[in-house]
């Protein structure tokens, strides 16, 4: 168990390292440098001076080393565009994305598990077909278009829900207000994960229901409800946990779109703005933090897997 843990953690560190190298390579090999250098109306000397000030004149490995060194001292640098510390900007945005992502994931699981169970236990029934149809629709709908349709319906037509932001301007924080702002973005983001969780729950439960110990449970007279929920579902959920871990990168990817459409001030919209503005330190910081969160969550899922399923022995 301990050696497995160490191995997995080293893998996680390696993935984070790859993320930093790839991001660093992409932003630094770009032609033209940061947009602040390209777009500014300045003389060549001024640009050179700024370049020197931002440390862009040094060779790549040196810059990577410096960045890494600062990073290990807890310093993510300052934004090129507004000079704010990157860590501060991320500190403001990260909780918002965790709230949105957490809400979307909770919503997906809460709806997908019952749907998967119904469609597995009543295979080929009308319910099963409807669940299947809606999963396919969820899998196929462009998130931003779904978002626009929701805004048109619930904000423009019905005036039920606010169309953007996290809070009503001028109003103090209230839970109701926050939830009202959260509903549509969370629903849109959950289309990324929900269909996959439904299909895995269904297939996994079907597989388990065909096993010998389920037949044994039925034979000794356990009511069907008990068979499904107490005996089968517990085991069927184990692979579903893994799938949720695998879906996390897609979830944060979906957050970029969702946050942009709904003006949700999170990591996704920050990443987009930083990428478009070629704000290198911000891009590096955001990608690193998001990557680390995803990798850590995956690590957690892997370990949870072992707790849920005692048959799994870590080498």
């Amino acid at each position: 168990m301990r050696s497995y843990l160490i191995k997995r953690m080293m893998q996680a560190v390696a993935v984070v390292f790859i993320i930093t190298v790839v991001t660093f390579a992409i932003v630094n090999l770009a032609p033209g440098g940061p947009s602040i250098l390209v777009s500014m109306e300045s003389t060549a000397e001024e640009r050179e001076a700024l370049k020197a000030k931002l440390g862009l004149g040094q060779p790549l490995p040196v810059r990577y080393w410096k960045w890494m060194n600062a990073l290990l001292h807890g310093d993510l640098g300052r934004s090129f565009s507004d000079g704010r510390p990157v860590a501060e900007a991320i500190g403001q945005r990260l909780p918002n994305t965790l709230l949105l992502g957490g809400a979307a994931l909770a919503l997906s699981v809460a709806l997908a598990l019952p749907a998967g169970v119904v469609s597995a236990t009543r295979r080929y029934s009308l319910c099963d077909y409807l669940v299947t149809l809606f999963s396919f629709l969820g899998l196929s709908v462009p998130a931003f278009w779904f978002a626009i349709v929701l805004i048109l319906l619930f904000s423009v037509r019905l005036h039920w829900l606010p169309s953007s932001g996290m809070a009503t301007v001028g109003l103090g924080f209230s839970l109701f207000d926050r939830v009202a702002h959260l509903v549509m973005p969370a629903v849109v983001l959950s289309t990324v994960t929900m269909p996959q969780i439904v299909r895995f729950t269904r297939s996994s439960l079907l597989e388990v229901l065909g096993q010998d110990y389920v037949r044994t449970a039925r034979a000794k007279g356990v009511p069907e409800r008990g068979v499904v929920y107490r005996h089968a579902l517990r085991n069927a959920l184990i692979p579903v946990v893994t799938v949720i871990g695998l879906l996390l990168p897609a979830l944060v990817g979906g957050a970029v779109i969702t946050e942009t459409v709904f003006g949700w001030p999170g990591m996704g919209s920050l990443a987009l703005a930083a990428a478009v503005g070629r704000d290198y330190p911000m891009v590096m910081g955001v990608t690193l933090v998001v990557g680390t969160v995803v990798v850590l969550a995956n690590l957690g899922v892997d370990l949870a897997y072992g707790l849920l399923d005692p048959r799994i022995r870590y080498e």
Partner: protein
Amino acid sequence: MKRFGELEYREAGPPAAGGDIPPEVAAALLRPVGWRAAGKRFFRNRMALAGAVFLALAYLGAVFGPLVSPYSPEAIDPAEAFAPPTLRHPLGTDEHGRDVATRLAYGARASLTVGLLSMGLAVCLGTLLGALSGYLGGWADAAIMRVVDAAMALPAFFLVLTFLAVFGGGLVSVILVIGFTSWMGVARVVRSEFLRTRGREFVEAARALGAGDLRVAVRHVLPQALPSVMVSASLGVASAILVESALSYLGLGVQPPTPSWGNMLMNSRQYMWTAPRLAVYPGVLILLTVLSYNFLGDGLRDALDPYLRD
């Protein structure tokens, strides 16, 4: 319609040989791919068939629409701006008086091209790596699979955003970034097919007849992996089209004035209140195309996989 549950069997490989496989299933597993029977099964699946028909229409529209249309997708005609659907403009015009039907047809070219070519790239990469991994085994397998794991854990969309923002969007960059970030599924599928097939009798027979590694891998083992790759690829095209539309919507994909369904949607956002139909057409087309590819992939999976047959 069909059941979409049992699919994971195929990716995980069949259950270990032994008493728990019914003889008729075991026989089906040992048969080479039966293309004719698979075709019959595919044509019985109504949703997959509907998907195939819609896709055929979409491709016909993409190929012939621009040839038939009297309009240019980029020609601006302010006098005709926001014209409602009429005989001259069957789907109306946009804010610059451009014919929407014509732009949708050109947009189909962009979106469908991205879908096919990026998935082509992903299939090549994935097949190559998966085949190497499954055929060589040992440390090469372990190394390649670790790379696959790492690539799957990356928040790829963030890297893609950065790449496109920095190097500029456009058809070619979008195809490259989607291709390079979506090969992992294919690699896994091909690897497991190779593991399944490599010890089988006909492979040993080929080897006994003097076939070299490359010949065995390409001529004897790879064709067995083809059905799984087809399934994986058609599901992959679906997600590639979605990603393209999202990137174009964010302004990082196919660049205006060249139309793609995604950037037409981005454009329509400003006129959401006045002309919502501009947002409806491309959105519905993306939805139907992606849905069709998903149904198609699922239908293929059922048709090609004898183990999953009822």
